[in-house]
């Protein structure tokens, strides 16, 4: 077995030094009835490295992927361009195979990268501080609701119905075992009706959670919500799913968010069938000590030199145990490294280009839609909803597009179970070329 360095004579010598005859003697403290027979587990046969590659390649070949198909899919996962350098950096063993940087003297690489990551995420979202990441966006949204409850010492959570249904479902699930109300506000449209959201706020409300751009891609003015949250002394939580938007449109921080959470998958991380992605968690400075998750901070060493450490650990479960701010004790470290490398390669200008191209592709498509397909109204970033006469018309188009190596959108009801089955959630990125849009429009005509 190539991953095991010992020879049989090593093992024998080691057993002798321990003073036992056989390896099985080292397991004598496990009652005999629980010992299983070697080789008896129903697993596959041991595979050589070549056989492993063959097995996984064969499976991979059954999946259509973005190297052979055009993607107009979003809903929380986006096909953005990933520069080769990103994958190179996160493949380096020093980043890939390091543990959590609890020994800072020999982990300054991870720590400084995290500090740079936190800074860039804070800047892009317009927020004061960022933590060192969460699992992904849905659980980060749930953690934001929990944090708002701690900060305000109130327990009611108001959720706009235009937040990604998966973020809503996970948040509702997390809150369902704790005291306090959880209210979802139906939007009645493919956008965010802030009057309805504001109408649901009361004195016991800890926070209001909206998504911006929302699940349907709508971009809207958050100012009225900020005023309403001030009046009710509750926190304004802004979720997002494609952070590339904030290189183009106003950031959650500039619009007054107290907490902004979402996905950083767009920052150099492949779609990967949903993960690992990158959950982001940012907030105003004054709430910093209530943040969940790991945080990296600046300090000095015994010689007075600058360095970085994990900090604010008194919030965490290894010290606080049942009173910890969260049970989370990992982060998406390697994905942070991917994101910070990506952002450093892009800079303001590159990020802005990604966002402009993503938005321009959508605009180019929507502006030329045939009459039998309707796009949702109002400002959109890179996502919107297309509506067909009925599910048959939509599905005919989807099937025709798939034949032409084009995934034309996600049937809305696939994510949002409440939706009528005639809508299509579509997303564009800089990976969509003008020809792809032309093909998309042709297919709409052909499959009419």
């Amino acid at each position, binding site marked *: 077995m190539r991953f095991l360095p010992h020879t049989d004579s090593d*093992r024998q010598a080691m057993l002798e030094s321990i003073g036992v005859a056989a390896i099985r003697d080292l397991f004598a403290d496990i009652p005999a009835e629980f010992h299983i027979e070697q080789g008896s587990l129903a697993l596959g046969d041991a*595979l050589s490295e070549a056989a492993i590659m063959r097995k996984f390649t064969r499976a991979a070949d059954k999946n259509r992927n*973005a190297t052979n198909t055009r993607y107009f899919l979003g809903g929380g996962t986006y096909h953005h361009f990933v520069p080769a350098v990103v994958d190179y950096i996160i493949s380096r063993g020093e980043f890939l195979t390091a543990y959590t940087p609890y020994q800072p003297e020999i982990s300054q690489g991870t720590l400084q990268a995290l500090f740079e990551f936190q800074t860039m995420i804070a800047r892009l979202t317009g927020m004061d501080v960022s933590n060192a990441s969460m699992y992904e966006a849905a659980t980060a949204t749930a953690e934001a609701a929990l944090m708002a409850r701690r900060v305000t010492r109130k327990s009611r959570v108001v959720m706009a119905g235009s937040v990604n249904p998966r973020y809503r479902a996970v948040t509702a699930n997390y809150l369902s075992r704790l005291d306090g109300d959880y209210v979802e506000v139906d939007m009645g449209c493919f956008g965010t009706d802030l009057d309805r959201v504001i109408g649901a706020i009361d004195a016991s409300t800890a926070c209001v959670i909206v998504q911006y751009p929302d699940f349907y891609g709508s971009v809207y003015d958050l100012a009225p919500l900020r005023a309403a949250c001030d009046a009710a002394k509750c926190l304004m939580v802004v979720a997002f799913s494609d952070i590339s938007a904030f290189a183009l449109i106003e950031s959650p921080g500039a619009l007054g968010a107290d907490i902004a959470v979402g996905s950083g998958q767009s920052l150099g991380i492949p779609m990967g069938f949903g993960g690992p992605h990158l959950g982001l968690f940012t907030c105003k400075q004054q709430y910093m000590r209530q943040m969940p998750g790991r945080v990296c901070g600046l300090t000095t060493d015994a010689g007075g030199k600058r360095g970085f450490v994990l900090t604010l650990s008194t919030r965490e479960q290894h010290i606080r145990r*049942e009173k910890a701010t969260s049970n989370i004790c990992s982060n*998406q470290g390697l994905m942070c490294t991917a994101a910070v490398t990506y952002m450093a390669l892009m800079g303001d200008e590159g990020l802005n280009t990604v966002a402009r191209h993503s938005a321009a592709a959508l605009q180019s498509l929507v502006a030329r839609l045939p009459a039998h397909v309707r796009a949702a109204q109002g400002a959109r970033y890179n996502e919107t909803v297309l509506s067909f006469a009925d599910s048959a018309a939509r599905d005919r188009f989807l099937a025709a597009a798939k034949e032409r190596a084009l995934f034309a959108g996600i049937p809305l009801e696939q994510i949002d179970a409440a939706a009528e089955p005639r809508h299509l959630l579509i997303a564009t990125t800089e990976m969509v070329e003008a020809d792809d849009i032309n093909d998309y429009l042709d297919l709409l005509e052909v499959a009419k």
Partner: protein
Amino acid sequence: MSISDTTFKYSGTVGMQHEEPVLFEHAHEAPESINLPGVDGDISPELSAFARKTPASIPGLSEPEAVRHFVRLSQWNHGIETGFYPLGSCTMKYNPRVNEQVVRLPGLAHIHPDQPEETTQGVLELMYELQGWLGEISGLPYVTLQPAAGAHGELVGLMMIRAALDARGQQHRRKVLVPDSAHGTNPASATLCGMHTVELKSGADGRIDLEELKRHLDDETAALMMTNPNTAGAFESDIKEICRLVHEAGALVYGDGANLNALVGVARPGDMGIDCLHINVHKTFSTPHGGGGPGGGPVAVNEALAPYLPVPRIEKHGDTYSLVHSCETSVGPVLGAPGQIGVLLRASAYIAAFGRQHLHRIAEDAVLNANYVLNRLKGRYHVPFDGLCKHECLLTDEWQEKHGVKTIDIAKRLIDLGFHPMTVYFPLIVHGAMLIEPTETESRETLDAFCDAMIDIADACEAGDTAMLHDAPLKPFRRRLDETQAARKPVLVWPK
């Protein structure tokens, strides 16, 4: 303290050591931007009304500068590829490179979770197979791959236990018993699941004390959360009786699978009476830790808990695999995705490499290595609990403390001697804990070198040569870092 560090005048690498500025200190105008694909067209006037007013100030680097910056940062890290990592309860084993190739196959990396299901049959097949393997290895046949980490798995497992008790009409069962040796996430997860914890005091041998357990089991008890082998590295030999007592009291047994590396292929938690177990694939199944994550914490349960598994579930009907999103008895969705697929694929490749013929050799060599280290060090360091250990061994600083040397000093001195320290001050049940887990992928030569270093440290203590221990580490380019200062006035971002 000045935020800018002026200790480096030049930026070269000197004697293989180097300074590297914070990215925001690379103060020159952004170079020509990266060439990007796509539609360079107009954005809609509606969207333009929301334009960002001031740029985010993300400094851009040219490609060669960016590569050098991050490569230089990487060289400040200890990793499993650069050296021994004997962190107890963390299972820092070698991460096979072929697994990295597997996850980069375009058909696995560049696929969307919501693309048509007939175009993702390959990945679903692999995940379905992995569910089966984890069920078989744990002896708990029903598996969810969704949890993103061990702590997430704990939460999901407790959700299922709670749902099962509720279904029996036992909404009053909300008490979770947690040994004082448990990982801190156990009580934190119970709190998040709307339950409360009662701490069980460990017995004199570091194991669960049956009398203490009996005293706390009552009709409000929902579960016992236990780690086996426990965090002192000892197998809970009373496991059968423990599970019997818990079940007799109407509660369930949650297994923290952090220490599964000691059992894999040798014995199965499900056979011992555990009802529900999370599996840290980044430990037992060798997915890289990545500097803190991503991890993966699949949960395996027995038939009684199967109805409560979260959605989406990966099912096979006929020859077709599918993600099933609705199930009335389910505890619901716990992640916005089917799981951390890239992590799970690596775990799958690891299991495939060992297969049914060799899987047990993981546990065998891991336990052999831990006992070898224990045996070599037991005369020089205090061993709080006698007997065989499993995959990790527990020492304390009791003998060194007489010379004024503490666990932290020993740990930092190890850095100067070329090793990552062991886990320190955990478990909490002994004073000055040092928990050493060598894993199965370390050679005898490495183990000997580490033991020699530990013995050298013990020698230095006895010789009164303790100054270098208190000052350690002296070799890295940074000495001990001031954590108090970092926490008192936190600076979490570089100022604009």
